[in-house]
């Protein structure tokens, strides 16, 4: 019996979550296998084989897997899965699409977004937008789960896993991939940035959102994030949404600007190492999770903050 990890990649790089999933997988003290599907996975397989703690990289290459569909990948997992004790992946849009489908094909339950592994079938996860923690035990013979990225450390490199190639089952052909749009941003990717500058509805317009937050983000090398209210108002694209129904981040520093701090938002950022909040309402709930809170008008405080950081840079020259 072994642990199978579904590995997400973009053809060039493994998703950073894969390295965390490997750390989570080591809990079982069983051999760890990594499943890589794609068009030509040779270079990804090399990267995967170099992760410490991985024994085997299983590659399935086919033109129809260049843009992997849930139907096909779940089918592959269901075929392989009978031999595994655990099937897991880092929690994200990719795994959320595929693993529940695979679990149902295997007739087992799934445990989403595990925060902590307590025993080989017992987990801590959050419910009600992170406002309650629940300990659950699965009675199924195969454990299928996704793990909450920031709860598990990044696995080291230095591994020498074997790489094997398997035959690919025929495409399921219920769904056709048409296109994909990835936002082109000069800022770092939200889910791996070490600093995030996030804004809310109070920015008032897409122009303000950009004009106030982008210079600060640029100075800090930060990714930009947003509340759902800001996204719904059209101030920021939806892939910037942080929260229960958006992306979950845990950077070194999270600066929440004009964000009220609804639980649906804080779910996505309260694991950040350091949280700074700027809000004009002293009673805003965001201050309950902030390490440093500044009660101020953001239209004054944010430009002042950016200016002070620039001034400091000049002073140091």
């Amino acid at each position, binding site marked *: 019996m072994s642990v199978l990890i579904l590995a997400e990649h973009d053809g060039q790089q493994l998703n950073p979550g894969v390295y965390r999933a490997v750390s989570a997988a080591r809990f079982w003290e069983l051999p760890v296998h990594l499943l890589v599907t794609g068009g030509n996975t040779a270079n990804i397989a090399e990267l995967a084989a170099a992760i410490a703690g991985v024994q085997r990289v299983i590659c399935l290459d086919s033109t129809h897997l260049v843009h992997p569909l849930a139907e096909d990948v*779940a089918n592959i997992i269901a075929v392989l899965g009978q031999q595994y004790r655990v099937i897991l992946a880092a929690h994200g849009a990719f795994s959320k699409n595929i693993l529940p*489908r695979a679990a149902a094909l295997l007739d087992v*339950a799934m445990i989403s977004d595990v925060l902590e592994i307590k025993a080989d079938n017992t987990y801590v996860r959050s419910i009600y937008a992170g406002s*309650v923690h*629940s300990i659950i035990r*699965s009675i199924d013979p195969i454990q299928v789960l996704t793990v909450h990225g920031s709860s598990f450390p990044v696995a080291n490199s230095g591994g020498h896993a074997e790489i094997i190639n398997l035959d690919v089952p025929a495409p399921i052909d219920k769904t056709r991939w*048409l296109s994909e749009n990835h936002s082109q941003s000069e800022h770092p990717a939200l889910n791996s940035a070490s600093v995030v500058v996030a804004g809310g509805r109070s920015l008032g317009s897409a122009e303000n959102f950009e004009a106030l937050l982008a210079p600060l983000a640029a100075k800090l090398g930060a990714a930009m994030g947003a509340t759902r209210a800001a996204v719904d108002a059209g101030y920021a694209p939806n892939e910037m949404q942080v929260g229960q*129904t958006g992306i979950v981040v845990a950077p070194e520093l999270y600066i929440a600007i004009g964000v009220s701090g609804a639980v649906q938002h804080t779910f996505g950022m309260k694991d950040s190492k350091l949280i700074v909040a700027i809000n004009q309402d002293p009673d805003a709930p965001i201050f309950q999770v902030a390490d440093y809170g500044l009660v*101020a008008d953001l239209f004054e405080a944010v430009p002042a903050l950016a200016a002070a950081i620039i001034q400091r840079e000049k002073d140091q020259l």
Partner: protein
Amino acid sequence: MKIMVAVKRVVDYNIKVRIKPDESDVDISGVKMSVNPFDENAIEEALRLKEKGIASEIVAVSLGTTANQDVLRHALAMGVDRAVLVASDTVLQPLGIAKLLKAVIEREQPALIILGKQAIDDDAGQTGQMLAALLGYGQGTFISTLVIEGREAIVTREIDGGTQQLAVSLPAVLTADLRLNEPRFVKLPNLMMARKKPIETLNAAELGVEFSPRLQQLKVSEPPVRKPGIRVASVTELLEKLRVHEGLLI
């Protein structure tokens, strides 16, 4: 074309749930319950397809106790044609729910099934994908746009860092993101009328599927709280704290 929507009854999103003193579960007695927000988007999208003449009939299904009649009445008041309650007093989990929904779908034969992308109580986000697997249908999850073209559902999916467009053959299972649409408000007269409409009830135990829970909740607890923060009086003080106390190079 017939559309089925799955509607879950959940604690209203504005309510902060309490934990039972024995920590066995959350205490939802007497708490305001609502339609799961994403399921309202599912209903709304089905209604729009009917208004465009693409859908002919919309059936809303909810699984749970007789208390779930209230969310079905809400769906009827929004405009769905029929409501089905799959009644069970036992704990229902995504896999079991998917199996029960499949049994209802075999009777109803809808061409399109729309669920919410996740329930805001269990935050599982699994039922739609599991249902699609059990039915052997194609799936379109976390969708923010939907167009029916011939025998396909053309969807935009929200994925990490962007969007994806797929064509899913009908019959298909879709799961709605909040951005799919803005659900309509229910008018009081419609709610009054919905009170008089029949709700068909099926006994879950009589649908011939095994749906017992596979997951046992051992305990619930408050999440760890962050240590209390500090209020700073100015931008200057904030930067001073970040630089000196936290050692940040900014």
